[in-house]
């Protein structure tokens, strides 16, 4: 089978996406006195990078704010290191947090801020689910509570950080000057409610419950996990009502 087309596409890709010399364009594409082959190929190289940088800038505005003028060169470095592997442009930023985490020149909190921003992108179009609402809770008998199945909605994500990057996010959002965050552990819940993406820091006992809530657990198990609290059932009810009001719990099948 003739593989000339594959060779042409390999050379085209190498010039446009890998930065190979545009002199390779001669003999591949037609040039003319008006525009040389290299000039014509340069259009594709510029459009390839510009489109990806634009999409990434749209998805990571807070990171762009803190990095400033160095953000675009950073994105070009990222695109070169992690060329897109999904047919959906929406996914182009999925590996940016990991890229930053492995980049010695990037402070750890940059990667964490990127992870927060990416989680917000990701939950925006995650699967829908009916949520556990107050009327359902009101209709329950006391005997039903221990076995009540609690699980976070699909459009949610729980992130553990070594820095309070949610504070950085809020400062930028509020137009307040951003200081480099000090090291302080923070667990952040990101979720979608109706058309809105929200996030907030979890309290310490909420954070300890998060892994179980992600896979599904019972109200009884929640109370057991809160054993060190002065009044575990009361605290469990308080959290349940808060989570229900925030629409972060799936409607159990049994209710």
């Amino acid at each position: 089978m003739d593989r000339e087309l594959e060779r042409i596409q390999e050379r085209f890709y190498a010039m446009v996406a890998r930065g190979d010399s545009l002199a390779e364009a001669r003999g591949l594409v037609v040039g003319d006195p008006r525009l040389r082959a290299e000039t014509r190929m340069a259009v594709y190289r510029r459009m390839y990078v510009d489109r990806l940088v634009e999409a990434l800038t749209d998805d990571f505005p807070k990171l762009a704010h803190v990095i400033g003028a160095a953000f675009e060169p950073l994105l070009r470095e990222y695109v070169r290191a992690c060329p897109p592997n999904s047919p959906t442009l929406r996914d182009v930023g999925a590996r940016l947090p990991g890229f930053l985490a492995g980049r010695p020149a990037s402070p750890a909190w940059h990667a964490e801020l990127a992870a927060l921003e990416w989680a917000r992108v990701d939950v925006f179009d995650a699967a829908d689910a009916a949520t556990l609402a107050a009327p359902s809770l009101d209709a329950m008998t006391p005997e039903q509570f221990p076995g009540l199945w609690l699980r976070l909605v699909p459009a949610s994500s729980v992130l553990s950080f070594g820095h309070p990057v949610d504070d950085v996010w809020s400062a930028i959002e509020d137009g307040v000057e951003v200081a480099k965050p000090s090291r302080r552990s923070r667990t952040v819940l990101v979720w979608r409610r109706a058309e809105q993406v929200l996030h907030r820091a979890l309290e310490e006992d909420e954070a300890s419950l998060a892994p179980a809530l992600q896979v599904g657990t019972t109200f009884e198990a929640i109370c057991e996990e809160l054993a060190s609290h002065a009044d575990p059932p009361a605290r469990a009810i308080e959290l349940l009502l808060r989570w229900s009001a925030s629409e972060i719990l799936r409607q159990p099948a049994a209710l």
Partner: protein
Amino acid sequence: MFPRLGHGFGLRPPHYRQVIDEQPPIGWLELVTENFLVAGGPPRRVLEAARARYPVVLHGVSLSIGSTDPLDERYLDALAGLVAEIEPAMVSDHLCWTSFGGHAAHDLWPLPYTDESLALVVERVARVQDRLRRRILLENPASYVTFVSSRLEEPDFLAEVARRADCGIVLDLGNLHVSAANHGFEARDYLAPIPPERVGYFHLAGHDADGGLLLDTHDAPVCQPVLDLYREALRRFGPVSTLIEWDGEIPPLEGLIAEVDRARAVADAALEETASGS
């Protein structure tokens, strides 16, 4: 072969809510397929609401019909699922390649027009159509290069793909204008080889210029030469469905509707002239 939907525009995020709430008087909507290959959330609700109000065409940018990479089966599965759910009036993508070595370009790269690429595209279109259980349509790309190895002219290649694969054509008159300027051919000459029964719809869009080339930026009103080309195309192909594409510097909805009305006026006049034999 293809439905006559009248005039419509490409629905983009700035207008999602307003179009669903106000239901402007247009014939149809085109949506970018990849924006809705998601699990849920606001995008899927927009798609369902748009579909409940208008005929919808799904227009993709990542089918990569001309790539030597294998067809992306996960993408095809997702597309097939979306098509089965939405039942769009038409499904289209581009005569181009958008991936190589497992990496996505997120750009529409041109093909050399050779016997090898013709056979490859025909075979892949057949497989896609089998998977989707319907004809697809391929759009002529705007291009900035032509290949030394090309044996066929683009309209002859596109016509031959349509004939052999039994698929349709989206005739993008804005892209045609851009390509004609960039490669020094007469845009009207492109129309003759295109089989009229294969044209499912026209695209009309604005463009920009940079460094001696026209760029299909889709961020401006449709220029007069493209409207003239549209008039010519209507005379040749008849009252084919027509879509205004505006992807950047998007105007308020009223401006987009005005552009649709402008195209409709051109079409009404052209078709009346044709009917009267003038």
